[in-house]
Structures are given as structure tokens and as C-alpha cells.
């Protein structure tokens, strides 16, 4: 071995072992250690070969390259593998183990002479050497160990070699290096990648959904047209049922059965007479009522409502019992649909379900029920009979209906509602007394006035505009003299429009210089109010 080689070997070994010592010394504390490993060889083998020999992998950096030597800093793959190499070189070189901290900028790497140990070559400060990847990639380390990171990085580089054109490869490699060296870059890289993948995912999902929907709609359109033609031909006697049934292709499929039901509903909705009569027949022949019955028993409320609707229109006889059971359904929408269906199906006694109603009869359902009565001209029951019911919604609905249909058969029942615990019920009864001109209620509502709440007080005062007589002038005067302005205004209005005696009373009050009366009279007589 030449002296030059020997010197180099010593220097390299010193550096290597010192760094290895540093590593081992700190290893037990869990700290991250760096080594310097000198790659010395006269034969100048390829970098990769040397790297393999000394367990140098991509996470190490080449600090300096001079002559045939390469100086690396970094974390080696495996301390255990590294130790024998270090110790072997230590033994061979007979060099003292010197601890070096490479992160200390004062640490030098000195190429020494092997004989007298004097500096024989250049002296390098680690801090002066080209920067390497001293930073630890903590983000990746949270998920992977060093070996996996290294393997992944190499795979990326290999991928670049195979797939990325030469002009861009350098940029690619630099990017890979930067990503693995700089945690922030890596973080943003993954963040951007995540968002890009998200956007791609959303677009793919949208595209797939739209494509699927369009395809489904296209098929349904084709089947819908075909089914319509067949059913029209059957209805007009152009084909008999066996032929029609045969022509209704794929009628067993769930989606196609839905199409058939929608066609029948369309017939039912738009035609009366002979065509209308055909609809239940076809519905039963195709066994579609079983689908609707199944839908009614579905756990999904929307499906349940759809089932109720189909049965009500297409299979009324079968629907009656089912609808009756759903009158008190837990779900508001199901219950509402069932209640409306009941009214449609039981035209003779549309409100018979009140007898068993325990759950709310919502305002929306009340409006729908009212519209059904009007549109289908259903027989209107005596709503006063329902005033006795405990169900508050039924009583309020009945009071409204009594007013609308001018049902004056049972006035005592209406007056009894004035004593209700519910503010709204009392309000509706005052309204009924007012609009139906129930004069018998005058004294009653006058007595109730002083204990009522604002809205109801106003309604009572309003009532006197229609039912008030001379006996009530004093009551209204008292309101004008003692109550707040909103009540005064309404009382003044009632007095003014009640009768001539009311107007006289106002004049009298005006003459007596009752405070503010002039303005009140001006206000109520102004046509804008």
C-alpha cells in the first residue's frame, strides 16, 4: 500500500470512527446522529458501489469530493451495520477514537499525513462544505421509518429515470431532493397533492353520476314511451291483454315498474271516464299494488308517502285500511299524507279519522283538507260536533271551518270555546263570534276582555264593530279612557262603525275634551287606515 493511500485511509478512518462514536454515544438518548464517512479507494469504484459497501444511502449527502475520495454526511441506514465497518477501519488504522460533532461549525475534516500526523492536504470546515440534508424530515418520519423513506425516494428517482425525458429529469430530481429535504415543501407538496386528488375525485364522481343518471333517464324515457304506446293500444282495444302484457318488456324490473306506476298516475290525473276506469284494472293486472303496498311498509318515510299516494289514486279499496293505520304516524309528513288520503278516500265521512286522532293535525294538513273539500266538493260535516273533542288542532280547525262555512247550528258550543285554556282557541272563538255575528256572545266576551291577552283583546274590541249595541258604548268608552293606544284606536274604530249612537258617543267624548280623541277619530276615519 502506498503511503498516500495509507494516509488517506487513516484520515478517513479517523473521521468515520469519530462520527460513528458520536452516533453511538448519543444513540441511546434517541437523538438523531450524523456520521461522516470517507469513501477511500485507489481503484475509484463507482459511487453507488461504494455507497452500498458503507451503507450510504440517499439520505446522506456528499459533503466533498476530492481526488478519488468522497466525504459523506448523513444518517446511515443502520447503526449496527455501520459499527463493524467503523471498528474494522479503526483497528486497521490504529487510530484513536475522537468524538466530533458535525453540527458544530468548528469541526474540521483534516486530511492528515499518515506518518507524522501533520496536515498534508487541505483543511475543511464542515460549515464551509456544500450544504447537505442535515435537516430531518419529521413529517415523513411520523408515518415511515428511514428505510421506507429512502426506498420510496429511490423509487421516485428510478421512476424519473425510466419515464421522465432527459431535459426535465434534473428538475425532477431536484424537486424530489427538495421535497425530501425540506419538510415544509413536503407538507405543501402533499397538501397540494391532496387537493388536486380531491378535485379530480369530485370531477370523476360528478362525471360518473351524471353519466349514470343520463343513461338511466334515457332508458326510462325509452321504456316510458314504449309502455305508454302499449297501454294506449290496450285501452283503445287495439290489442288484448296477453299481447299487451307480452309487449311490456322488462316489466318485472323495479325501475320499470315505477315507470308503469307513474304512467298510470298520469292517466289518472288527466283523464276521467273510460280511461280512468282502465287504470285500476291495469294496476292490479300488473301486480303493481304489491309494489305500492311494499312501499307503504318501507322504513323510509319518502317511500312510505309515495306508496300512500299510489294506493290512494290507483287502488282506493286497498288503501283505506292502510291509511287508517297511518293517521297517527310518528313522522309529520307520513301522517299528513295519510290524513289527506283518508279525506280523499272517505268522501262520505271525510273527517271520521278525528275520532281516533291522537297526533297533531298540522296547519298544512288543515289547509290541504280545506282545499280538498273545496276542489272535490266533499260533503261538509257539522264542525260544531268536533268542538267537543279534546284534540286542540281539531277544535281550532273546526272553529275556522264553522266560520268559513257559516255553520250556526250549535252556537252554545262556539261560545263554550271562549272558556278554553288555549289562547288561540279563544281567539278563534272571538273571531267566530265577530264574523258570524253571534250577538249572544256580547256579554260573555265583555267579561272576558279584562283578563285577556293583547291579541285577543283586540279581537274582542273588533267584534263590537259588528255585534255592538248601545249597551256596549260604555264598555268601549272605558277602553278609550283607560287602555293603551292600540286598544283605544280599535275601540274608537268599533264605536265609529258600529252605529249612529257610537258616532254620537265619540262626538260627546270629543266635546268633553277627552285627551287624544280627536286624533283617534281622525285616524280611524282616514281611508288610508
Amino acid at each position: 500500500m502506498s503511503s498516500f493511500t495509507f494516509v488517506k485511509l487513516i484520515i478517513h478512518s479517523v473521521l468515520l470512527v469519530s462520527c460513528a462514536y458520536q452516533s453511538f454515544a448519543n444513540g441511546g438518548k434517541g437523538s438523531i446522529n450524523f456520521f461522516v464517512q470517507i469513501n477511500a479507494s485507489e481503484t475509484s469504484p463507482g459511487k453507488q458501489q461504494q455507497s452500498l459497501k458503507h451503507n450510504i444511502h440517499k439520505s446522506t449527502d456528499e459533503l466533498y469530493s476530492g481526488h478519488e475520495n468522497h466525504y459523506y454526511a448523513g444518517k446511515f441506514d443502520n447503526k449496527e451495520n455501520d459499527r463493524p465497518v467503523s471498528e474494522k477501519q479503526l483497528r486497521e488504522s490504529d487510530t484513536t477514537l475522537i468524538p466530533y460533532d458535525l453540527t458544530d461549525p468548528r469541526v474540521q475534516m483534516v486530511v492528515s499525513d499518515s506518518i507524522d500526523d501533520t496536515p498534508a492536504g487541505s483543511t475543511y470546515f464542515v460549515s464551509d462544505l456544500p450544504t447537505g440534508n442535515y435537516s430531518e424530515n419529521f413529517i415523513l418520519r411520523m408515518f415511515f421509518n428511514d428505510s421506507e423513506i429512502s426506498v420510496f425516494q429511490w423509487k421516485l428517482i428510478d421512476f424519473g429515470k425510466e419515464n421522465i425525458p432527459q431535459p426535465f429529469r434534473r428538475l425532477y430530481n431536484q424537486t424530489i431532493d427538495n421535497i425530501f429535504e425540506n419538510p415544509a415543501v413536503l407538507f405543501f407538496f402533499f397538501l397540494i397533492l391532496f387537493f388536486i386528488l380531491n378535485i379530480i375525485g369530485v370531477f370523476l364522481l360528478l362525471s360518473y353520476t351524471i353519466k349514470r343518471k343520463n343513461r338511466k333517464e334515457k332508458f326510462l324515457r325509452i321504456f316510458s314511451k314504449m309502455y305508454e304506446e302499449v297501454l294506449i293500444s290496450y285501452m283503445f282495444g287495439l290489442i288484448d291483454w296477453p299481447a299487451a302484457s307480452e309487449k311490456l318488456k322488462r316489466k318485472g324490473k323495479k325501475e320499470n315498474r315505477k315507470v308503469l306506476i307513474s304512467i298510470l298516475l298520469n292517466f289518472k290525473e288527466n283523464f276521467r271516464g273510460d280511461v280512468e276506469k282502465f287504470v285500476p284494472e291495469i294496476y292490479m293486472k300488473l301486480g303493481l299494488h304489491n309494489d305500492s303496498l311494499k312501499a307503504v311498509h318501507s322504513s323510509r318515510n319518502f317511500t312510505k308517502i309515495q306508496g300512500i299516494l299510489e294506493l290512494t289514486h290507483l287502488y282506493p279499496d286497498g288503501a283505506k285500511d292502510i291509511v287508517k293505520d297511518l293517521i297517527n304516524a310518528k313522522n309529520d309528513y307520513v301522517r299528513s299524507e295519510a290524513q289527506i288520503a283518508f279525506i280523499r278516500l272517505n268522501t262520505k265521512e271525510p273527517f271520521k279519522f278525528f275520532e281516533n286522532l291522537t297526533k297533531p293535525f298540522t296547519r298544512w294538513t288543515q289547509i290541504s283538507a280545506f282545499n280538498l273539500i273545496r276542489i272535490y266538493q266533499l260533503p261538509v260535516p257539522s264542525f260544531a260536533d268536533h268542538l267537543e273533542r279534546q284534540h286542540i288542532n281539531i277544535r281550532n280547525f273546526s272553529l275556522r271551518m264553522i266560520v268559513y262555512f257559516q255553520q250556526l247550528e250549535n252556537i252554545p258550543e262556539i261560545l263554550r270555546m271562549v272558556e278554553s285554556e288555549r289562547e288561540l282557541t279563544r281567539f278563534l272563538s272571538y273571531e267566530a263570534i265577530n264574523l258570524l255575528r253571534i250577538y249572544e256572545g256580547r256579554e260573555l266576551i265583555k267579561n272576558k276582555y279584562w283578563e285577556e291577552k293583547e291579541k285577543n283583546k283586540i279581537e274582542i274590541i273588533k267584534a263590537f264593530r259588528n255585534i255592538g249595541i248601545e249597551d256596549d258604548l260604555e264598555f268601549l268608552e272605558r277602553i278609550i279612557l283607560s287602555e293603551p293606544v292600540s286598544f283605544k284606536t280599535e275601540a274608537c274604530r268599533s264605536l265609529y262603525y258600529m252605529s249612529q249612537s257610537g258616532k254620537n258617543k265619540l262626538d260627546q267624548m270629543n266635546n268633553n275634551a277627552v285627551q287624544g280623541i280627536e286624533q283617534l277619530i281622525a285616524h280611524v276615519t282616514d281611508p288610508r287606515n
Partner: protein
Amino acid sequence: MKRILVAEDNRLILETVAQSLTREGYDIIKAADGRECMDQLKSNEVDLIITDLYMPHLNGLEVISNLNNQNKNITPIMVLSASGAEENVLKAFDLGVDDFMVKPFSLIELNVRVKKLLALKKQQLSIT
């Protein structure tokens, strides 16, 4: 053979009405919307127009207005509509509609009304 133009965007109603009137011996021209109705009228002479009120592109009332503007108002017009709202009925008659049927309707009744309208037209033509 009398020729009737039926304009209706609901294909089921269009086909059913067309089938029913064909069986009565009329020649039927179909239009799926208001614009198609106008196109058909440009190229065909018809004895009666049956139109829906609510259609894409041009609604029934617009079709009737266009016909009035083109002085083609001698053709009897029947309106089929899901809405029997007074406002619509009055507007339609104001525009010169001869008959108004509210859905759901009976095909037998429709055929009778069609026959009646065509007979009236025949009478009017014979007078003039």
C-alpha cells in the same frame, strides 16, 4: 276528412287524445310544444286546434295570440288545461277561444265537443 291539430307537451295526453280522435275518423297532426304548433300551422291547413295552456317555448295563449295576429283566427280553438282558474278561462275566451276543458277530462266529452265545434264551423262557413 277533418284535420285536427293537437298541441300538448304531455306525451301521454297527446297520444291518448290523438288515438281517440283518430278512431273518430279525424286526421290528427301532433305538436309537442307551442313552437312546433306554429310550425305545423304554417305548413298545414287545419279545421280545429286543440291546445294545452302551459307548454314549452310558446304557451297556449301565446299561440292563440300569434294566430290572431296572423289573421288565422277563423279556425276553432279548444283549450285543454290543468288550471281552470277563472283568470285563465277569461283570458282564453277573450283571445277568441271557442271551448275550454279542464283536466282531468273525459275522452267521450272531448269527442262530443270536437264534433260540435266542427259543426259550428261548418255552419259559419255556409253562412259566409
